[in-house]
């Protein structure tokens, strides 16, 4: 039995030791002396492919800064940040959320708009440009994926467009809700949903371009998806965060964003 206990003690010490491992990417409080700075970025899900490219481009110039990305819906991030989630920068698909954070004095710098998002109809098996919005009324369309309107801006706008075309009540039963816009896109890309109302930025990605076709929903049918990012209080003193924020304003970054459909 004492052998068991020695084993248990070894495990306990191992467990406690591993609770603070000396790892190269450990979050440090003083970015000035650390070899690797960490920046935690909350990015709206529509930026999935655009942000990956942005981070790649940025890392090529400054490889001592580690950008950690978390994708999700803007509304969810707003909630988490309001509850002191340790993010340094918040990229939101709707300016409304960063504005609320500003009012709550949780921001470090002014909000910087970086583009306007667009809605598209995307389908793996159908060509939405043939019927436009009426594609949704086809009998072969049994499931339509949208992002959760409760906390995803693209979901809210999708609802608005549907109502504008007076299609909302007709297709309501077919709607399938994704956690955020990229889950909605995933439902559509596997064919689980026959059509998805997703972000242009995702439709323009290499994966989705290959898999299906899209049709741009006229922007006039919904409120604009003005996107913006903001440095948060947590980023105070984080040079890496400031550098990355500055990079987004560069010509290179603007080009990437434009490529993914974030027109001005």
């Amino acid at each position, binding site marked *: 039995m004492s052998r068991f206990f020695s084993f248990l003690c070894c495990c306990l010490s191992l467990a406690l030791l591993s*609770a603070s491992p000396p790892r190269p990417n450990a979050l440090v409080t003083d970015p000035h002396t650390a070899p690797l700075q960490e920046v935690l970025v909350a990015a709206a899900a529509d930026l999935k492919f655009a942000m990956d490219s942005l981070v790649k481009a940025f890392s090529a110039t400054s490889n001592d800064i580690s950008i950690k990305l978390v994708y999700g819906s803007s509304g969810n991030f707003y909630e*988490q940040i309001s509850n002191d989630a340790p993010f340094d920068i918040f990229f939101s698909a709707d300016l409304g959320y960063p504005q609320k954070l500003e009012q709550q004095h949780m921001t470090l710098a002014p909000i910087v708009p970086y583009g306007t998002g667009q809605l598209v109809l995307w389908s793996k098996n159908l060509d939405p440009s043939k019927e436009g919005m009426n594609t949704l009324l086809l009998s072969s369309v049994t499931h339509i994926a949208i992002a959760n309107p409760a906390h995803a801006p693209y979901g809210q706008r999708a609802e608005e467009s549907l109502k504008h075309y007076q299609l909302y009540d007709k297709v309501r039963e077919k709607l399938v809700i994704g956690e955020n816009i990229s889950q909605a896109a995933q439902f559509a890309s596997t064919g689980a949903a026959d059509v998805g109302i997703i972000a242009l930025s995702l439709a323009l990605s290499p994966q989705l371009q290959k898999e299906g076709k899209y049709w741009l929903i006229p922007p006039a049918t919904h409120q604009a998806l003005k996107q913006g990012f903001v440095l948060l209080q947590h980023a105070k003193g984080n040079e890496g965060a400031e550098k990355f924020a500055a990079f987004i304003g560069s010509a290179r970054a603007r080009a990437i964003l434009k490529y993914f459909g974030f027109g001005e």
Partner: protein
Amino acid sequence: MTDWQPLWLSFRLAFITTVLLLVISIPLAYWLAYSRWRGKAVIEALISLPMVLPPTVLGFYLLIALSPSHLVFTFTGLVIASLFYSLPFMVNPLISGFKSLPPALRESSYTLGKSGWTTLIKVLLPNIRPSLLTGIVLSFAHTIGEFGVVLMIGGNIPGRTRLASLAIYDEMESMNYAAASTYALILFTFSFSILLIVHLVNHHFSRPDPLS
């Protein structure tokens, strides 16, 4: 190119949780097995709750409880959550183990002048090794599989709270099906192997009497 960090995080969480649970559960299970307090049923029900409660309910209450101390979005917060989440998987096998021991074992130790503590360490625990193993393995495996609670209070932060179970979800959302599939296969193989080991060991322990 698999990112091993989520798997390492999941493993670390499960390991720390299991060790802590062992320390907490032995006295707790002992008390529940042998006490005659009438309020026991309430405690037993509370302990077993995480087995039947939707993880989102547990996540919800944990979010409220942990927010003031800024433990949400931290690894430590996940450890605390896992302690609640996996507690019944350690305590219940131990209680069964203790209850399956003939009362004469404990009582004869007392008649030999040994204290409750000595009896627990030297007589009872060595005779419930299968239950200890079951408890350890089940809590470990259950913690590896944690998803709903982690989603709600973890924040999915890479290197800190992005466990393997969340990583699969992320990769699926990003349509990286190959990566998702790799994680899924690793976790599946791991869970299956561990359960196989438990069953094999339990068969070994319940071998028929060698004299018969």
